[in-house]
């Protein structure tokens, strides 16, 4: 009997051993399930259609063209492959300016819409689907699905634009990379210097004193870092650089660098500490100074561990949400410098998911962003695994 219960408990232990793998599988499954619909979806709002005059030869428009047309940046059908005719945009609400309300009851409204579209040659109308009659005279534009190239290479992120939303993630991707790059540029030299100091130079008492400090720095919640950045660093940057707004990529990089420091310091220090004493003593015995030994022997020996520290720091910077959301200004434009507001992928998800209706194109695009973020960090943590695995083989 006792053996039997032991067998059961051991079985449960075995199951729980696989739980992380199962969770990762579930995450992949659900993220892709929610996001994959994106490329089968039109960027035009659900329940709405775009319609043109039946005589118009244009069959389909890309979301970008639709947006340009309704922003009146494109004013002639010639520019989108049609006849040389001026474009007249028509939104559904405009029908109420043409006719008094009492003349627009029920079917009459639909009739009037149909007439309006067949009357004007250059018209393009944005209408709710439910007002279309079977006898509708206008020609419906085929709605274009969001394409892979639009998603990955598009430079405009206007997920809620009407009539056609745009889902170009390039500005978000570049924003994320820019902020991460800035973070590493600050945190890497800083962190490695501290790690070398703690592992090689400082005496053990100082090292002991630093341990809880670094732990505490790692323990401060990201939202508190964000708050500190918002009330201290953002105004400071605005003043120093004389900018119109202080919420910039630089503010994000500084805050993220502080947040990444504990990770980089701990991992790099552990790596540096693994250098065998014999190697150091041999170097010192040959007449090298302490610094030469560190630079020529210790650092090259522990370089893979230091690389792992850097990768972990980058991973932290790419995925961090709240602090970045609070200090970077969140402008979804192509970033050109660290002194402008930028928007990262995690910040976009955090800021927009609350307003995106479940199942909408916008919602799906945000889950797709989540997939991309997941893949990015997966690549990073696998390469960390690879780097530190290589090290073990060398020994």
């Amino acid at each position: 009997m006792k053996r039997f219960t032991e067998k059961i408990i051991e079985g449960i232990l075995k199951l729980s051993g696989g739980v992380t793998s199962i969770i990762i599988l579930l995450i992949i499954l659900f993220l892709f399930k929610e996001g994959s619909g994106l490329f089968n979806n039109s960027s035009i709002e659900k329940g709405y259609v775009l319609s043109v005059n039946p005589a118009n030869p244009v069959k389909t428009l890309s979301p970008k063209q639709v947006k340009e047309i309704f922003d009146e940046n494109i004013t002639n059908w010639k520019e989108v492959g049609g006849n040389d005719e001026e474009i007249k945009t028509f939104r559904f609400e405009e029908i109420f300016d043409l006719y008094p309300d009492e003349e627009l009851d029920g079917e009459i409204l639909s009739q009037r819409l149909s007439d309006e579209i067949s009357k004007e040659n250059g018209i393009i109308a944005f209408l709710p689907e439910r007002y279309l009659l079977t006898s509708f005279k206008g020609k419906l534009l085929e709605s274009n699905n969001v394409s892979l190239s639009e998603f990955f290479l598009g430079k405009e992120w206007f997920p809620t634009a009407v009539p056609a939303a745009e889902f170009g993630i390039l500005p978000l991707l570049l924003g994320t990379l820019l902020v991460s790059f800035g973070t590493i540029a600050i945190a890497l030299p800083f962190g490695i210097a501290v790690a070398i100091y703690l592992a090689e130079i400082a005496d053990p008492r100082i090292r002991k004193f630093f341990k809880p400090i670094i732990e505490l720095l790692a323990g401060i919640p990201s939202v508190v870092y964000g708050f500190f950045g918002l009330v201290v660093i953002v105004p400071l940057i605005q003043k120093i650089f004389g900018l119109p707004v202080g919420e910039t990529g630089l503010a994000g990089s500084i805050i993220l660098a502080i947040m990444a420091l504990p990770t980089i310091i701990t991992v790099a220090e552990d790596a540096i500490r693994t250098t065998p004493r014999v190697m150091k003593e041999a170097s010192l015995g040959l007449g090298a100074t302490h610094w030469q030994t560190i630079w020529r022997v210790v650092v090259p020996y522990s370089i893979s561990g230091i690389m792992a520290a850097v990768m972990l720091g980058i991973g932290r910077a790419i995925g961090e949400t709240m602090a970045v959301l609070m200090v970077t200004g969140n402008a979804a434009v192509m970033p050109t410098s660290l002194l402008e507001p930028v928007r990262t992928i995690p910040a976009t998800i955090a800021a927009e998911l609350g307003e995106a209706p479940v199942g909408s194109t916008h919602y799906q695009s945000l889950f797709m962003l989540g997939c991309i973020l997941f893949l990015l960090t997966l690549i990073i943590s696998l390469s960390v695994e690879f780097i530190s695995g290589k090290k073990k083989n060398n020994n």
Partner: protein
Amino acid sequence: MNTDILNIKRKRRSQAITFGLFRVLSYMVILILLVILGFIIYNGAGSISWNFLTGYPEDGMTKGGIFPAIVGTICLIIGSMVFAFPIGIMSGIYINEYAGNNWIVKFIRIMTNNLGAIPSIVFGLFGMALFVNYLGFGDSILAGSLTLGLLVLPVVIRTTEEALKAIPDSFRTGSLALGASKLQTIRHVILPMAFPNIITGLILSVGRVSGETAPILFTAAAYFLPRLPHSIFDQVMALPYHLYVISTSGTNIEASKSIAYGTALVLIVIVLLINILANFLRKYFGNKVKMN
């Protein structure tokens, strides 16, 4: 000969400069921590009062207290621990005591590290897709706790694993040689010995949970809810989300600034207490183990 001495002197000087620079940078880490803590304590201390800690938010969150947020955070901490601790500890035991050293362990370890590296906002997305929508929990303590539990699971597993690894094999073989079964060995010898280290790690993971915002944005957190939760299917306010809301998108950001400082201070104090407790336990148990 003379140039050699000059060379050595120059090397010495450059070494002194470099080491000096490294030392300055290291002490800057302490300075950064002190500045952040000092700034928040200095500005937040004024808004801490009994009313603030036990009152409900009023006037569009520009006045009143943060009691519902404190309660909400405690609910989420307890919920996630109930979920993550047993599974995480069992998983750690399996990896260290049973699995041996083969490709399965390697795979599990890589997966655990991967799970630990996934950004918190991705956990938020996953929690929303699985718990809130698919399983139909809605925005609730349950969904939020499960999401946070997943987030700290790798931490719990790694902590347990490290703690078990630190126990010398002689204890295992000794117990087995006395006729105990493997499970008895784990239950009566290994776990009691590893307990202090496990507890310390678990306490630190509580700190992590208490400050996480992104995973609960879409799974549990309420913007404004001036009452206490009735069941695990209720939405709650939470301290980190509250701080985010009143410092970025509140109705009147300037007027709620003192509340924001106060909330940040409460969060910092929680984290400080947890760290102090963990360090204390480490020292306390450390001495005890040595005496044995």
